[in-house]
């Protein structure tokens, strides 16, 4: 199922929620990444037809979302908010949600059984939701979205409050669904969470889309930004002296105890090309080399600054 967003804007009076967004989401897992208040939840609520676009269009497989309740047979939505009818038990909640999806009681119970078991809530299914811990509430919220086997899932900060085991099983389930051909859209402000689920991301800040694509493609967009490279070797003094002579090396941080130096370069390609020659010409043994900012944290920091 494909999500197509064209020139989408949403504003509330003078406040802009999202601003001129255009993107397409294909089956698989896609991450919405951005700090709190970036507009991720507003965007998800627009995509699930809860809010009406001020401008632009949203379509799911060619169908408009706003005021189109029929689409919800194919949509699963997990809200960020920790909200429930607290008088429900976990079981009743999932069954009620399935009943509202249009299933008979019998079918709803069969589906609820699978979903509740999948999130590890079987033993406590009959307890009132009000008595659940935050992690349990999050898990029962996840159970209600995949119980009806939707083709597209929108998950707003789905790992909130989950313990490490719960996180792992949720991540595995999300990845499995993406691999199974479903379109899964996950929002998070925690970068490594998204990184664990997908490398296809959409970066959002202040309601604007900063970048979309593969993490490495996005990295390519910011080639002009300096890259940090940490090198551990047996002769940091010589290597430092050599590197200082190159114009594309902007700064070097030195750690003699660890035999390590961190180089900041504004031309990463050139740097990576020259480094082996410098090492070999000066007979320096390289022990390790990595880039501390080649993860989403760094990319995100660069883009939102």
């Amino acid at each position, binding site marked *: 199922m494909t999500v197509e967003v064209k020139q989408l804007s949403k504003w509330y009076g003078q406040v802009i929620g999202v601003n001129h967004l255009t993107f397409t989401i294909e089956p698989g897992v896609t991450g919405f990444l951005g700090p709190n208040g970036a507009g991720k939840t507003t965007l998800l609520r627009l995509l699930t037809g*809860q*809010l009406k676009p001020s401008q632009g269009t949203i379509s799911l497989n060619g169908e408009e979302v706003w*005021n189109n*309740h029929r689409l*919800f*047979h194919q949509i699963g939505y997990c809200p960020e*908010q920790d*909200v429930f009818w607290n008088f429900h038990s976990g079981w009743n909640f999932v069954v009620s949600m399935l009943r*509202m*999806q249009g299933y008979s009681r019998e079918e709803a119970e069969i589906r609820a059984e699978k979903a509740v078991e999948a999130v590890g809530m079987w033993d406590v299914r009959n307890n009132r939701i009000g008595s659940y811990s935050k992690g349990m509430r999050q898990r029962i919220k996840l159970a209600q979205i995949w119980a009806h086997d939707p083709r597209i899932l929108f998950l707003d900060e789905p790992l909130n409050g989950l313990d490490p085991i719960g996180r792992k099983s949720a991540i595995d389930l999300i990845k499995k669904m993406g691999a199974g051909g479903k379109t899964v859209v996950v929002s998070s402000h925690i970068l490594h969470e998204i990184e664990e689920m997908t490398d296809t991301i959409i970066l959002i800040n202040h309601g604007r889309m900063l970048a979309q694509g593969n993490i490495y493609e996005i990295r390519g967009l910011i080639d002009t930004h300096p890259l940090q490279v940490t090198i551990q070797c047996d002769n940091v003094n010589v290597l430092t002296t050599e590197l200082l002579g190159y114009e594309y090396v902007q700064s070097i941080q030195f750690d003699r105890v660890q035999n390590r130096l961190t180089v900041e370069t504004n031309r990463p390609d050139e740097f990576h090309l020259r480094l082996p020659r410098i090492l070999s010409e000066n007979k320096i043994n390289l022990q390790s080399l990595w880039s501390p900012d080649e993860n989403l944290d760094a990319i995100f920091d660069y883009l939102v600054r």
Partner: protein
Amino acid sequence: MMILGLFSVGLSLVFFVLHSLLGGTELSASEAFYEISFSLFLHLLLPLISALIGTGIIANEVEERTLIYLLTRPQPKWKIILAKTLAGYITAGLILLIALLATYSVMSALAGDQGWMTLFSDLSRICGVLLLGLLVYLPLFGVLGAFLKKPVLAGLLFTFGWENLVAYIPGKIRLFTVVHYLHDLFPHFRKVRGNSETAFFLNIFITDQDLSTPISISILVLLAALFTGLLLSVLYLREYRLEQN
């Protein structure tokens, strides 16, 4: 809400005992029941219970933010509101009818002059008036609840500030209250005009603009349809941001 219903029974007892102690003219079961059902049920409990339940039809889901779940199901929005309104109607109706029946049986037993069946036609007519009133009030308060931030307060202000005060003001302004049309349908409302004690209280509400029963029913049904239509279209007319945690 059930407490409100029980409260009405208690209040009826107090009223009846006080009336006897203060040496008022002997009150028949029908008169006592009639006065209580008119002043307590029609003017207080009906709008109050409608306000408490009606304002919550949408407002509770918005306040609790559970509206998210309702709006992301493959159900048309009008169906969701209709289901909630029906549930509210059944709840409010049951509370009112149970309280009314309890009050009637208590009053009847205390007066000791008439059995259940004697005034059954009055009782069923009063029930009908209350249920018709509920049909108008519930969606009306539902609409208030959908658009206002403090719907219960607004509902109470409407109940006691508009319905119960404006109905006393002579002139045509009382035509803009719902309760005005319910008065006409109340049993013996016209008959008691000019009649001593009971009439003294009831006559306050009688005006030259009184309408016939069919017209009153038609206006009430029209109002019910108007407010229900408005309520059913609320989720199409406005969107809810639902504040974040």
